[in-house]
């Protein structure tokens, strides 16, 4: 009797503890983003009011409208009475720093990087995982060792290379290097997937008279879709956050800045407008956070591919 009771007490206690631990971790991981979200919903200037509000009493989308450049002059005029900056000027500044352009640029860069690094890595992964030749591991190591080199080490010559190609201040200067920054990791990820497919596939296809490129394209690629997908999401996320190269080759020109470079620019220009900066942060993180949540399983698989063999 008492043993049974204590068992029940113990399960309930365990359940309570589990919930507490979950909440603690959630607080640790989510509080910073939560507070940024809350700041972004405050009316302009309210972010400096003491006592701090954890959640705004009157949430407003003002900051998002400003950051997306859909602010109206009248609105600004009513807000900034007594401010040194003329409303018309302020509207112009806001328009010029509209976050729509960086978001669009980042979308272009990241999609292009994901697509091309997938194309190139799936070829190399196919060779490593499925074709007969001697230096498989060495090839993989060669690619991986390259990826260990910090961008700080390669940035100066890459900058010069882009200059001599006349690509400075264009999105291509970010796209091309970023493709290859992601190729080593993608190759490995995809190779791991390819290696799991049965090897009879090739033999069957050869009997049917397929050429190697046809086997690759028509048999292997469709079957390895999840692996390709994981690598694609990975490359997308990687290039979305890449800052050093993006800020060097965009050279402060807003029209070609991706999100990370524009973010820094923005936070310097509007140093005191934390509702705006917060809104910009939320906008830059929203898409990738959503993607990660949806494709969580693949992302985690990608992350751990190097450290842990499943």
């Amino acid at each position: 009797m008492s043993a049974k009771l204590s068992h029940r007490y113990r399960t309930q206690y365990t359940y309570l503890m589990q919930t507490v631990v979950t909440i603690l971790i959630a607080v640790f991981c989510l509080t910073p983003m939560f507070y940024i979200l809350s700041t972004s919903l405050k009316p302009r200037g309210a972010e400096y009011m003491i006592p701090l509000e954890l959640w705004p009493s009157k949430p407003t989308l003002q900051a998002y409208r400003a950051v997306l450049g859909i602010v109206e002059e009248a609105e600004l005029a009513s807000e900034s009475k007594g401010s040194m900056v003329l409303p018309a000027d302020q509207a112009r500044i806001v328009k010029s720093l509209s976050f729509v352009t960086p978001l669009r640029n980042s979308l272009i860069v990241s999609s292009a990087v994901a697509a091309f690094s997938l194309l190139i890595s799936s070829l190399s992964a196919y060779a490593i995982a499925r074709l007969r030749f001697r230096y498989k591991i060495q090839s993989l190591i060669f690619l991986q060792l390259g990826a260990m080199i910090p961008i700080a080490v390669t940035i100066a010559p890459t900058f010069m290379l882009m200059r001599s190609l006349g690509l400075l201040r264009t999105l291509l200067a970010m796209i091309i290097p970023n493709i290859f920054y992601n190729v080593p990791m993608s190759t490995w990820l995809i190779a791991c997937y390819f290696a799991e497919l049965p090897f009879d596939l090739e033999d069957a296809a050869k009997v049917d008279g397929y050429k190697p490129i046809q086997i690759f394209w028509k048999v292997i690629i469709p079957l390895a879709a999840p692996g390709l997908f994981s690598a694609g999401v990975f490359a997308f996320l990687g290039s979305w956050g890449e800052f050093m190269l993006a800020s060097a080759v965009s050279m402060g020109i807003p029209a070609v800045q991706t999100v990370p470079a524009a973010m820094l620019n923005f936070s310097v220009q509007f140093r005191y407008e934390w509702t705006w900066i917060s809104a910009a942060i939320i906008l830059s993180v929203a898409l990738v956070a959503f993607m990660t949540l949806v494709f969580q399983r693949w992302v985690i698989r990608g992350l751990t591919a190097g450290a842990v063999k499943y």
Partner: protein
Amino acid sequence: MKIRLREPTIAFLFLLPAFIGVIVFYYYQIVQTGIYSLHNLQHTADWQTQPFVWFKNYATVFRSTYFWQSLRFTVYFTFMATVLELAVGLGMAMATFWVSRWLGGILRAIIIMPWVIPPIINAMIWRWLFHADVGLFGYILVSLGLVDKPPLFLTEPMLAVHSVIFADVWKNSSIMAIFLLGGLAAIPADIYDAAKVDGARSWFRFRKVTLPMLLPTILVALLFRGIDALRTFDLIYGLTGGGPGTVTETLSSFAYKYYFTYGKFGLGSAYAIVVFAIIVGLAAVYLSRIRRNMRFKE
């Protein structure tokens, strides 16, 4: 006419685009940076037209107190951040593994969130949370009665150093946790069951069963994070700008400053080569560890 290619030739052709790209954007660049570091190179000048100065840039670097200070900070930052991330990450991984399936699923989704945030945006977030007057962090400390007024997180040297470390730990503990979760999942369940049958208490089980089994994963995770932490740049650039003074300047952020702020490509390259030299050693160990995972049918 029909050309029949042998399989190794096809493999070579398939590998070619990846190899060319990686050679052009990694290996060739190292050589270039090496060459730059031997020249008195100003901003966008062509290195062939600039004076060759042997190891003068390195001499300048090694003689400068800034270099030693930033080397010290880089190493301290890497050590502290990696160790703390291991502790926090291990805690989070064990918790996720321990709670019910349902809560575990939620935890996984929560834990991965800080990892998603790009480093430069992480820097922005913490600049606001560490704000000297209205930062949430200082506000909480004041509300709890721990301090009288919000500490100057980013302007007091000792505090700034640790604020940067904290911001890094917040973001990167999640990747540590994800690594270790993978490692935990790979431990065969019957080992636990055997230990349970033997009546081993949970702490003893953790110390004698889980930890030893997890050790290879921990080592790889530490190396992976260590290599990444040594080249930290974005976080510093966005959060403190290397300040106050040059207290939180890493080798990478110094290199970047020499390139694009002072326009001294030669000197910056010397910094970069030093970073490379430090990382190459760790990278070799890391690759030799993960090599065991690279098994493909010959």
